[in-house]
């Protein structure tokens, strides 16, 4: 795939923001995990977040679909502000897909049932239609032939692709990925990254926590570096990797690149 082409064709100039986070703070008890996050994600923009373990990356994206609750500042997703209003939360969750490090497929359901659960029960789509959607998305991640199996019968890479397809079945406007390849054996990383790259080519708005630098370079519009609950710096991948501004970023990059 030609990365220049991909970026040039899709880079958005308009400024309709999908996610707007302003001065957002979160504490776990006394522990100040997120210390004033400001982040705007435009429609079709793709952001890769990296940073040392424990720096708050997962917590940040989990605040976006309210798996974690923030205590100060604002988060607006697709025009809806995240408050304690349950209706809003469920609405936003249906629009925001999330892919986890450990896949979190439902082991008691077949692959197809995993995929149709959301459409049938949240979107109220009739079953046969939900199954068509499921097969369409399984084709997309090249795994349609496994539809009748159970998650436990699939390899890690296949399971993660199913998890991606499961999110896609909800027809989300935003996809969040929390270290989607870090629990995988090395030989399976590529198949998952390829699926994500295809998704990027379709113009999905994505936030990806990942240390896969090749992926970041070819797909991201922006790479952010987080440390101690703050976004330390953010830049285009070229600038970010060639010319990091902060000492901590340099140190981190030197650690993961060698």
């Amino acid at each position, binding site marked *: 795939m030609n990365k220049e082409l991909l970026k040039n064709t899709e880079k958005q100039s308009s400024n309709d923001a999908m996610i707007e986070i302003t001065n957002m703070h979160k504490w776990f008890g006394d522990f100040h995990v997120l210390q004033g996050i400001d982040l705007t994600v435009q429609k079709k923009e793709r952001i890769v977040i990296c940073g040392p373990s424990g720096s708050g990356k997962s917590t940040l994206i989990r605040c976006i679909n309210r798996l974690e609750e923030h205590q100060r500042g604002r988060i607006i997703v697709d025009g809806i502000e995240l408050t304690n209003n349950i209706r809003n939360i469920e609405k936003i969750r249906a629009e925001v897909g999330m892919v986890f490090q450990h896949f*979190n497929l439902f082991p008691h359901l077949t692959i197809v049932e995993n995929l149709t659960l959301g459409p049938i029960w949240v979107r109220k789509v009739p079953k046969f239609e939900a199954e068509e959607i499921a097969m369409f998305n399984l084709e997309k991640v090249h795994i349609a032939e496994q539809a009748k199996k159970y998650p436990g019968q699939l390899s890690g890479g296949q399971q993660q692709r199913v998890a991606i397809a499961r999110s896609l079945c909800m027809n989300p406007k935003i996809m969040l990925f929390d270290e989607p390849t870090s629990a995988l054996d090395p030989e399976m990383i590529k198949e998952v990254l390829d699926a994500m790259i295809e998704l990027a080519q379709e113009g999905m708005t994505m936030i990806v926590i990942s240390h896969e630098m090749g992926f970041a370079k070819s797909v991201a519009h922006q790479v952010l570096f987080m440390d101690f609950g703050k976004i330390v710096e953010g830049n285009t991948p070229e600038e970010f990797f060639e010319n990091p501004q902060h000492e901590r970023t340099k140190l981190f990059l030197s650690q993961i690149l060698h």
Partner: protein
Amino acid sequence: MEESIQRTQTDELKPSVTSVGAIGWARSNLFNGVFNSILTIVTLYLLWEIIPPLFQWAFIDSVWHTTGKACRGIDGACWSIIPTNLRFIIFGFFPYESQWRPLLAMFILFGLLFYSRDRKHWTKYLGYGWIAGLFVMGLLMKGGLFGLTPVESTQWGGLPLTLLLSVFGLTAAYPLGVVLALGRQSKMPGVKWLSVIYIELIRGVPLISLLFMSSIIFPLFLPEGITINKILRAQVAIILFTAAYIAEVVRGGLQGMSRGQYEAAESMGLNYYLTMRLVILPQALKIVIPPTVSILISAFKDTSLVVIIALYDVLKTTQSVLSNPEWMGFSREAYIFVAILYFLGCFSMSNFSRKLEKELSAGEQQ
């Protein structure tokens, strides 16, 4: 080339005579080691001492169709006590000429239970079938409609009563237990603490005291002239008691679920109710099938405790037969019979749970 290699291998690898067949089996299963050999010999000796005399007593020297008097002279079992008193043991004081009604009700119940064994039959029509069945069974027991003479519930007894208390007790206790387990996990403090207090209070007292309370203390609080059916009170006590134990088992299953399952369900927009119903409970309840069935089995046997509030369940009717002078002293035979009845009930339950467990885990091995 491949063939020749295989042939030489099979020649060499042929197992020695002693590791196959009956001898081999006995060797590896009964006599592997000094301790196991001693155990085997002791067991064999005990079996030799017990089985033949038992067999002699039960089948060879026994009588099946005599009066109580005729039994006095023999060495073997006097099974005659069972056929002669069968109708009282099974139906208690239910009017003699109407005993076909509880019999039919039991057949309907067994039919429904048997049909429900197969998960393929679990459709909404089966639900309707159960509702209709329950209605017909109630009508048969109670009478008063369609020319059936009314029978007071004080006359209900024997096996139908045992089955009534168990089947209703268990089917009502299970969902209540699940709700309590969810309540105990709830984020709402009120719900949570009510569930905790309920569960701990109930588990802190024996079933007997609950039955006493329901039959003696509870009526004291009712206004003059209002009585609540005694069977119903016992039934409620059994349900409340069993539910508390089910709740604790189910809670164990819920704790075994990873946070990721909740998060995956919630992140696709499922609400609490749907997350529980579609994702969490199917898995959690499946994990706890074995301990749940243990509780159901002991609850089934515990229904016999209703004798202490003077309800004539199948154990009590059997005892009553033994207090008849003609049959006094043949308690072994009578209790063996009741034991077989209980065993059939318990065995089908554990059998069903094994079947269910196997079906539910088909295909999803990790």
